[in-house]
């Protein structure tokens, strides 16, 4: 029965996991510290007690976790695994890219790998270079994978369930800075959504601002700052990075004629560049140069004074909105223009 519950983002993830484990007996949940300890962020608390051996702790062996999920999925299980930090994916990328993504294609559907890999990423004060990267573009580059980035409590619930129900390998990238940000009403036990689709979070007429993940909150703040200058930004939350809902983005840009894409990841080779390319290819008429806001091409420093200079925030996004609305030459959109560290 659909109902509304007051949940934190972490509790919303937990509720989705509980529902999946409850309704789909073929699901398994495993990863480092997820079972008895209930997760290093407390996200998986209580699930071991409730679902027993289908929820278990693993050694610190990411290749075995993801590869094990792929193999079990080929034989009818529906594993949900956790990679504690997106940065740790990199020790097991083979199992994601060369293995999970190929299973269905090469066998022409004879075998599939319906796995869900939950992780979390992004910068937080004091986090080191190996614990703060935003890696969605790495996964988004790979055909065969789906990539979700829930920004809200509701999406923490909905996108995860969509991922588990989906028959493809799905990576769900959460954000640890959102886990414990207080409770909000979350609709639970409703229908399972398709594993795709963006949402307009704030309608606006002047500039399209596309974003995803935790950056949504900075983007909404930036939209308010820009509103103070008479600029009405339309904020779109991509929610799914692959497949990317370009229809929603293009329809918005057709109305506004202006585009800013903001993400925490590096701009170079990032998903923002992909969006700008798609908009350019679509032939939509732009009234000003499209802009990207993202991290400059540099490693992530630990000291807060340094990290602040590279991680985008509401002010850097608002600045881009203002430049976008003011026009801006095409040259200004070249790499680095929106990259210059501020403050």
């Amino acid at each position, binding site marked *: 029965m659909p109902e509304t519950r007051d949940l934190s983002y972490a509790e919303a993830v937990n509720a989705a996991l509980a529902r999946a484990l409850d309704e789909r007996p073929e699901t398994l949940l495993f990863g480092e510290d997820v079972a008895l300890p209930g997760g290093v962020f407390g996200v998986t608390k209580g699930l071991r007690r409730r679902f027993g051996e289908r929820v278990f702790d*693993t050694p610190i062996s990411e290749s075995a976790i993801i590869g094990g999920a792929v193999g079990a999925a080929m034989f009818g299980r529906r594993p949900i695994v956790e990679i504690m930090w997106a940065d740790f994916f990199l*020790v097991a990328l083979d199992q994601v890219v060369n293995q999970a993504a190929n299973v269905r294609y090469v066998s022409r559907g004879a075998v599939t790998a319906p796995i869900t890999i939950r992780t979390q990423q992004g910068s937080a004060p*004091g986090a080191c270079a190996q*614990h703060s990267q935003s890696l969605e573009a790495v996964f988004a580059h790979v055909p065969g994978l789906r990539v979700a980035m829930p920004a809200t409590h509701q999406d923490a619930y909905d996108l995860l369930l969509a991922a588990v129900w989906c028959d493809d390998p799905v990576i769900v990238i959460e954000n640890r800075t959102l886990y414990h940000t207080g409770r909000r009403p979350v609709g639970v036990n409703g229908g399972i959504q398709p594993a795709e689709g963006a949402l307009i979070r704030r309608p606006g007429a002047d500039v399209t601002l596309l974003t995803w993940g935790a950056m949504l909150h900075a983007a909404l703040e930036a939209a308010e700052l820009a509103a103070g200058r008479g600029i009405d930004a339309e904020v779109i939350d991509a929610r799914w990075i692959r497949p990317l809902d370009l229809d929603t983005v293009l329809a918005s840009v057709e109305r506004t004629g202006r585009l800013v894409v903001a993400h925490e990841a590096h701009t170079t080779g990032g998903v923002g560049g992909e969006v700008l390319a798609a908009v350019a290819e679509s032939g939509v008429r732009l009234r000003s140069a499209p802009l990207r806001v993202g991290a*400059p091409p540099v490693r992530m*420093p630990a*000291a807060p004074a340094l990290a602040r200079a590279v991680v985008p925030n509401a002010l850097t996004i608002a600045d881009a909105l203002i430049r976008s609305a003011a026009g801006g030459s095409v040259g200004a959109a070249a790499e680095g223009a929106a990259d210059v560290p501020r403050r």
Partner: protein
Amino acid sequence: MGTPMPETAATQLDFLESMLRIRFFEEEVGRLRAEGSIVGSVHLCNGQEAVHAGACAALDPSRDAVFPTYRGHGWTLACGVPPYALFAELLGRQTGVNGGRGGSAYLTAPEYGMYGENSIVGAGAPIAAGAALAATFDGSGRVALAAFGDGAMNQGAVHEAMNFAAVRDLPVIFLVENNHYSELTPIASMVRGDRLFARASAYGMPGGRVDGNDPAAVRDAVAQAVERARGGHGPALIEAMTQRIVGHYIGDAQHYRPPGELEAALADEPIARLLATLRETIPHAELDALSERVRAEIADASARAQADPPADPSTVLEHLYA
């Protein structure tokens, strides 16, 4: 491993000083983290100091290379990095060993033979093997030491590094600090058979277990492995049995530890143990004076580092490429 030999009082006092420096440093870091002067993940090594003090006593700081983990403050200090420069790094100050870029969990001090913490579990092992590989070509006689936790023994990179080192006779020491837990999970539930050192024979290298709360025992085991490695006879695996007497991270309530375990660990921790021995032969006032001197050194280093300016954001893009 190694035959224990009687220690001179001077050596024992050196070990005590080295371990106290680490302990007082960590206690001050805990305080700074709690008050918010240090932010982010901090992994203290309280209880494991004998491993760092003992191992570094067997290494040659002018040429050997140490590769610790995120739990690396003890290693960094034992390698000789001044507490002031380490505090400054943790505090995100311009004067930190890496100007604030590394932070608590990923700092490096190559000028002291400390070639970098690693926040990716097990990742230091193949790099240490590589440092040893270079030594087989450069005539330096360098030995590399990779330190990592019990949990890291289940990481693919560690397996690959051990076999690679064994098959090429690389002068590298794999030192497992077995503190019985990886984060919140006991190692006993993650391996069949808790004798981690026994894996050495499968790779064709010597392996052994040592009391990791006894700095002299650790030094002797490492010294023996160093001698072998420098002599061109290849790597070794040492499992140092120890306990962390603090949480995995600051704020870890340690609910996963069975009742009584922490109390037992505290009764056997290396500093309390060495002090008890030394009190039998050395005047208590002398031991107290040593302790007070180190405490003052740490307090002064912390105060100076706190007074330094934050890391300079105008430098943030520097040093990415040659």
